[in-house]
């Protein structure tokens, strides 16, 4: 059984800022990490592999990103993936949801071929869009289920526990299918050992450029994107609030009461 996990490398979200003069992102000194929700998806794949030894599960991770995204993939290999592909080319840069989903589709079909299950993180912590997986599923002609937190494989079908606004649903779907993962398996994750790290270096990691995917250059990167970012800016800063010392609890409670009274809440 082939399980594909789609991966994104993201900057640590809370460290990104806008240069107020140029209006561009300041990325210098911002560390990149494997998107935590992608890590959950990988954990889920590893769990399925351990739970289903008879299925001969192979875990393949794939990402589209700059050359340094390879480190996120190496991390995945350390954490239990068997094989990694990085779709990396200047021509891919500037891709929006549509162009990203299309490029991933081509990468999957041309490099991996048949597969049984695709797992993705529920969203990336930089963009927070959660839109690429559904578009990828549509492009591949397979069904998708969002916000899964547990999966059971039953031959050619899976049962997915999916978070809902009220609790959860169990949904059955025939494979191949795509599931996004909102929470990792409840087992505590281990840090990769030295042995895992050495093993990871021996696992295949292939870097693929636009040419080898044979894609129409009008369909990739900025050219292939239907949306255009016309402006980025810092959110309006909130004026600092009133912070008081609460050592005198009666006084603090009174001030809180007055504040809420002013706002017509009490």
């Amino acid at each position, binding site marked *: 059984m082939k399980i594909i996990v789609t991966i994104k490398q993201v900057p640590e*979200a809370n460290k*990104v800022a806008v240069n107020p003069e140029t209006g561009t992102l300041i990325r210098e000194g911002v560390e990149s990490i494997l998107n935590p929700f992608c890590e959950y998806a990988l954990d889920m794949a590893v769990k399925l592999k351990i739970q289903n030894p008879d299925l001969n599960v192979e875990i393949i991770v794939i990402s589209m990103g700059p050359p340094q995204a390879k480190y996120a993939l190496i991390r995945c290999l350390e954490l239990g993936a068997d094989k990694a592909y990085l779709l990396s080319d200047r021509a891919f840069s500037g891709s929006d949801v*549509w162009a990203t989903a299309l490029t991933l589709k081509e990468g999957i079909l041309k490099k991996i071929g048949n597969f049984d299950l695709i797992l993705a993180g529920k969203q990336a912590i*930089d963009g927070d869009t959660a839109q690429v997986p559904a578009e990828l599923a549509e492009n591949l*002609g397979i069904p998708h*289920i969002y916000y899964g937190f547990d999966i059971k494989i039953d031959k050619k079908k899976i049962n997915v526990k999916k978070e809902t606004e009220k609790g959860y649903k169990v949904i059955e779907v025939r494979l191949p299918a795509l599931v996004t993962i909102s929470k990792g398996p409840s087992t505590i994750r281990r840090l990769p050992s030295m042995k895992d790290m050495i093993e990871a270096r021996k696992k295949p990691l292939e870097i693929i450029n636009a040419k080898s995917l044979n894609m129409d250059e009008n369909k990739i990167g900025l050219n292939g994107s239907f949306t255009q970012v*016309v402006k980025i800016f810092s959110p309006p800063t909130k004026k600092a*609030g009133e912070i008081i010392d609460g*050592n005198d609890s009666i006084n603090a409670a009174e001030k*809180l009461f007055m504040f809420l009274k002013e706002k017509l809440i009490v």
Partner: protein
Amino acid sequence: MLDNCTLCGSCINVCRYNALSIERAMIPLEDLKKFEGIIIWGELENKSGQLQFKKVVYELLGKALELNKELNEQISVAVLGPPGISALIDELFYYGTDIVYLCEHELLEDFSNDGYTTVFTSLIIDKKPSIVLYGATIKGRELAPRIAARLNLGLTADCTGLSINKQKQLVQTRPAFGGNIMASILSPYTRPQMATVRPNTFSKVKSKQSKKGIIEKISVKLEKQSIRTKIIEEISSKTESINIEDADILISVGRGIGSKENIKLVHELAQELKGTVSSSRALVELGWTKHPIQVGQSGKTISPKLYIALGISGAIQHLVGMQTSDIIIAINSDPEAPIFKVADFGIIGDLFEIIPQFLKLCRKNKESSL
């Protein structure tokens, strides 16, 4: 047979051999102007056994009315659901809806990506709107990209701002990088322009005194086989009736509460202020509270009128989920807690001393006003 084809794409779903495909040509730029009107997805929810529209539908209508000052086109709502939902739609007309496209079918009783995508796609192909808006709800975030991919459309997710520019294009503004930056985005080449919009961002506006509007019944063609997912069971947690996304006042509790028993105090405060209790991730992980009431990146994004954070330090993952609240109050014993940076009013102190004092004041106030 082909005469009946609406190019909805559902046949592609059914075929297991990838034998079918639809080539969708790009729209020539001069034809973009032929697309007109705003369609809003009228997402339904089941609230204690009763179907009703989600609050975000009215918020989208409020925004559509504003956008329409520049466009002067038609505002319509697409309502997809089981037969018998027509009684619900009158309310929509008070909030600015010109036309309701009513799509009823047994197979639309439960939401499914496949079923809803097929029906909504056909409607878009038929009506050619210039803008389609969805709530960035759990379902909206699944449905919109599926439709965008099927129709080759640009899509901007999770918008917090929408406006119309001089070229009559939809300017879609959304936060990125955990809310640290904002980006304004256009879809210059594709129509309709599609966006999902974060709930609790816009306000609902009652615009008409009478219910006057057109209901257009859409004939829905949907086969059972084109829905590839099957709901096996549905489990509601005990806290199901509480939807923190809809609450105007949230009293949120974090690790500083110390023990599960102490949460009682927070409920007391919530009762006094007629608010709803929510929680940080830490307490959900400790098993003291349940996930449906979790605020933050891995929980819910909320934007109430008042948010009171008790014993919550305010990690970035928490802040991104609540920082758009109108008024934020924080009580925390740690003066360095990041929550104070977003608070309108903060008390550095012991919540176990301050809250009981505050409750006393509220009760005294009530007595004196009687």
